[in-house]
């Protein structure tokens, strides 16, 4: 075997090894998701079977039908939970992104006293686990009378997301050359116009990605929501999952069905925005 065919063989073998590695990694990531979908479609006996039944024998949409059939018939107030989730996630995302844009812009463009300490302080808030705050927040919210309200949860989520959105958006504004805003001001813009006409469109993909992250954090958050909400009027979808647990039983199938209902909107949104995100990043081409 000459050198060239040896090298060719080696390249081919390496390719196969890479693919196997990649397959294993993707399997680890995707299997739980797939398992949730499968479990929502099969009877409890099959879900609990040991050894696991890999190929479903008996598929039905009973759990989905039951979910929407109202209280008393195995249903839960899924529409209300969905509405709560949507209101709370969208509102807190909009607020967090607005604050993130203002803050990120300030950190990227202005020099001020204590800038790095403030920035570090903001980042440090991310080190505190949300669950550790739930008890103090609970007492505080009870006193303020905002327990079990949309407003209370929105407030908590905004606080949770703002450091992250500031950090992410700051990075994107830094990539937009300062010259562009200055050129716009010379071209007749006010500082405000220069921001909206030039800097905002260029940092758009970054702001969109900050928005996705903030939205998903709110949409999937469980620990705080389970402490700060009680009733159908404020509970979000992740908290709604607990409706499937009774004193002695857990309805795994129902829980998985609700999980699927939760995942679909998040997945769809991410997919739609992600296309714009990639498009925006490639057409930006600030440097060159």
């Amino acid at each position, binding site marked *: 075997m000459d050198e060239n065919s040896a090298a060719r063989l080696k390249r081919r073998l390496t390719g196969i090894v890479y693919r196997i590695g990649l397959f294993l990694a993707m399997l680890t990531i995707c299997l739980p998701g797939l398992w949730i979908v499968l479990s929502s479609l099969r009877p409890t006996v099959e879900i609990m079977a040991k050894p696991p039944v890999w190929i479903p024998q008996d598929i039905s949409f009973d759990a989905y039908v039951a979910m929407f059939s109202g209280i008393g018939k195995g249903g839960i107030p899924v529409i209300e939970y969905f509405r709560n989730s949507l209101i709370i996630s969208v509102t807190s995302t909009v607020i967090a992104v607005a604050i993130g844009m203002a803050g990120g812009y300030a950190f990227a463009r202005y020099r001020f006293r204590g800038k790095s300490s403030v920035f570090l302080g903001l980042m440090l808030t991310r080190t505190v686990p949300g669950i550790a705050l739930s008890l103090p927040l609970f007492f505080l919210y009870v006193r303020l009378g905002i327990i079990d309200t949309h407003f209370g949860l929105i407030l908590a989520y905004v606080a949770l997301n703002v450091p992250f959105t500031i950090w992410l958006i700051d990075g994107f504004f830094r990539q937009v050359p300062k*010259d*562009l805003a200055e050129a716009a001001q*010379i*071209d*007749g813009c006010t500082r405000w*116009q220069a921001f909206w*006409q030039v800097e905002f469109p260029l940092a758009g993909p970054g702001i969109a990605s900050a928005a996705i992250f903030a939205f998903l954090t709110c949409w999937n958050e469980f620990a705080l929501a389970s402490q700060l909400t009680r009733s159908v009027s404020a509970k979000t979808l992740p908290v709604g999952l607990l409706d499937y647990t009774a004193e002695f039983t857990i309805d795994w199938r129902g829980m998985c069905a609700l999980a699927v209902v939760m995942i679909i909107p998040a997945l769809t949104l991410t997919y739609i925005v992600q296309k714009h995100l990639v498009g925006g990043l490639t057409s*930006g*081409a600030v440097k*060159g």
Partner: protein
Amino acid sequence: MATVSLKKLTKRYGNVGIVHGIDLDITDREFIALVGPSGCGKSTTLRMIAGLEEISAGSIEIGGRVVNDLPPRSRNISMVFQSYALYPHMTVRENLGFSLKIAGVAKEDMDRRVAEASAILGLDALLDRRPSQLSGGQRQRVAMGRAIVRDPDVFLFDEPLSNLDAKLRTQMRTEIKKLHAKVQSTVIYVTHDQVEAMTLADRIVIMRDGHIEQVGTPEEVFRRPSTRFVAGFIGSPPMNLHEATIDNGQLVFASGEKLPLPGQFKANVTTGDRVVFGLRPDDIYPTGHGISSGGAADVHQIELPITVTEPLGNETLVFVEFNGSDWVSRMLNPKPLKSGERVAMSLDLSQAHLFATDTGKTLRS
């Protein structure tokens, strides 16, 4: 079209002074180049005129109107940036028309003015492209087009050619000159490249450490530099500058070598004075191979060893050893020379310069 007047213009960041109270009057339609090494305050001065930096003291007048505290948009200026600063998310057409759109100019008027600017700069074929699809030279032209469209009182250029390669730079330099001839407006042009300044400007302002060293026509700053710094900065290759002491009508260098004191300085120096002697490469040449061969009034002949030669085709830079260091000379109609060879050199002392060692000021009266 407008005059620009800087009065005691000062810029400080905290306690650090960047520009120290400069005065400058620029006449209508004049092309002024601000030139100097990095950190001399030339860009800061330009940015203060543009309104992108606040001024710490003094005043700026454009067209007789004090604009100290006006925002950039109210000064009726336009600026070409070193980075071009084209808006990446807009086409060339939108880039050109952006200022008009902001000003609320009617669509037909806007289209007409964009078309005019595009015709002047030959951008017609590029109007629907994005900046990322243009070459460096094309981007530079779009940036200039964007400046023209506004029909400003004053054009500001901030090192506009320094991102281009050498060939394109020469080409764009010519285009800028043609453009100025065409639009006939006041131009303030910042560059660290003295060749650009010399070729483009009506007058050159040489800055150093936040002060103006000299203001003059290219001819003046080249022929009659008022300080040692200007003498060394303007001209390529730079002027040969060496310290010497005056002794009975002679210049005595550190190595002990001597040259006669040029006649034009005899009245201004006395024995014992410490001076800096300067001679441009054009005024020191192998005998018979100089610009002023035969016509010069005060030529001193001396035989010197050659260290290195740099042939450039039409001329050769010859480095000769004098006073323990290399002096660069320019040889026209070059003939082959070898390192180490001793050649007869002509020094045209009528073109020599003398500067006071302590103040750096010229000793020419």
